[in-house]
């Protein structure tokens, strides 16, 4: 926590060492969050790329109210959410992603993960985005329900419900024959 505060302080003053350290410290964590949200490694890498570029460009505007880890996850989640919306709305979306059925059924992630991870990810991808986001941000990004509620401008109870419904659905998916 203290290290993060110091890193951010240095980063805002243009320290390349601080930027490198932040990147190395959180790269795997952020790519996991983005991949779980988007179910597409390529899209997740794009989001991470966009985030870090935007992070550097707006370094002077970064204001940390909580911890750096949650802040980074929040920004990545915002970009992922935006990307999902974009994919759903773009007239060329089919060409861009080649997914007629759903942007969530991208195959490339499934191809590179071990089978169990692939199954888990496939199950996560079948959750409504709102539920998937809460589960990923809570379990992967270690964000508290209150933080997620604030991020999505909604009540903690709503976030808890989404989490509960999402986990129930995930459990039934993982236990069902569909994914076997």
């Amino acid at each position, binding site marked *: 926590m203290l290290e993060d505060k110091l890193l951010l302080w240095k980063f805002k003053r243009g320290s390349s060492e601080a930027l490198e350290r932040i990147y190395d410290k959180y790269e795997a964590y952020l790519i996991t969050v983005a991949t779980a949200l988007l179910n597409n490694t390529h899209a997740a890498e794009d989001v991470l790329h966009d985030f870090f570029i935007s992070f550097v*460009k707006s370094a002077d505007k970064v204001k940390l109210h909580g911890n750096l880890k949650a802040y980074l996850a929040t920004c990545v989640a915002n970009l992922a959410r935006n990307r999902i919306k974009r994919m759903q*709305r773009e007239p060329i979306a089919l060409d861009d992603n080649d997914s007629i059925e759903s942007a969530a059924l991208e195959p490339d992630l499934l191809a590179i993960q071990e089978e169990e991870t692939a199954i888990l990810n496939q199950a996560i991808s079948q959750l409504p985005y709102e539920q998937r986001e809460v589960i990923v941000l809570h379990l992967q990004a270690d964000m508290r329900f209150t933080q997620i509620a604030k991020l999505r401008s909604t009540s903690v109870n709503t976030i808890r419900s989404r989490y509960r419904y999402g986990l129930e659905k995930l459990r039934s998916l993982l236990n069902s024959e569909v994914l076997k």
Partner: protein
Amino acid sequence: MKSFQNIQKIVAKFKVKPGPEMRSKVLDEALEIQRNQNQQSISDTKLNIWRIIMKSPITKLATAAVAAIACFIGLSLWRTTGSGIALADVLARVEQVKAYSFKRTLHFWSEKVTGKDPNTPYIRGTFLISQEYGWKGKIEHLDPNGGDSTFDEYCVLPQKNTTIAISHKKKKYTRKQQDDGWIERVQKANIDITDPHTFLKQMLKTKYESLGRSTMDGIEVEGFRTTDPNSLVGTSSSNSGPSKRLDQKLWVDVKTRLPVRCDATWVDFDQMENKKKYERHVLYDFQWDVPVASADFEPVIPEGYASWVVKYPTHITEENAIQGLKVLVELLGKYPENIYHIVPENINDDAPTVLRLAEKSETPAAMRLKEEIKGLTDDEINNKLVDFLMPIRGLGRFYRYLQFDKKDPAYYGKTVTPKDTDKVLMRWKVSDSEYRVIYGDLHAETVTPAKLAELEAALPQ
């Protein structure tokens, strides 16, 4: 059975390893930008006066007041009466136009999100549409976190069955040689009221009212409005259920009887979140009957951009699917467990996906492939593998079309092997009384639903 706690543990343990080139790709660029910024901040100490002015609460109030007055003036202009234009006639005229261009903005916002300006678009773009040559769009995506926007260009060339996507940010372009059925399906898949033709067609399905005549940008226009959510039925915007409310307006040039502006806002009430979510599309700055040539639809690729070529079989058929399965068996020595494993369709990850699939395989085909691509870059690999990948892409697309056409497809690669002459590897519905089946040894036949049920019951669990 997995318990609630187990699921939480499994999800928490889920980890993705970043790609080997990820660090250099992202961090190098970020460091370079940081270096430039550091230099800039030393040399540039001028205050951004405009930003300070606009941050002032008094200025914000004054700006809001000016905007409100402008809206009031605008509204008062539109309240005159007098109708005479039939929307069906407008649609007929639009259909006669050979080529036109327009601009579009897309906005999202929700009721409870504070500080989000609904007037700031997420996406803005310019489009050129020709009956003869196709479709071209330049689209800017704005970063919700206040960072840089991205600028992409797309071309759809139906005559050539080709699509081209240029990412200026990544300095990369993708040229896809599509199959024959693609254009038709992409139109169905993406139908939305985001072009004037669909906008009008959907509006005609509803009970609309006249807003009377007024002047817009110096043009005498007649306005139309509908609030009937049926206007969204059949579009991709109708997915979120009956709670959708719509406010759709259209202004038509009284002289030319062609649209001048289309503006649609729809609201979803999210019962779970107890809040309204808004989406707004505005189409404007129409140029009708613009002269076009085929060259206008050929994008200009800036020098130094990496190219990516993707080819699909011309006709997507059962034979393509069988051929794709055959190539995969040769490569992997078995059928992939999940159909999605075998669909390397993502435009930028095709070659690496196949490499990853083949990496652990020691079949002669895999060994040959690995030898051939040793030491090549991703782009070189893609260029080398364009034809090799085509049957696999054909298989992927065949399966996706079955899903898209709701033909009840299923795939059993996890339990069926190439030696299984009597086990169903893949099946789909042909009609209510017939299913088509591809068996493990890749021969195919048509069976009744009862026979299929029998075959599927015999599959190993």
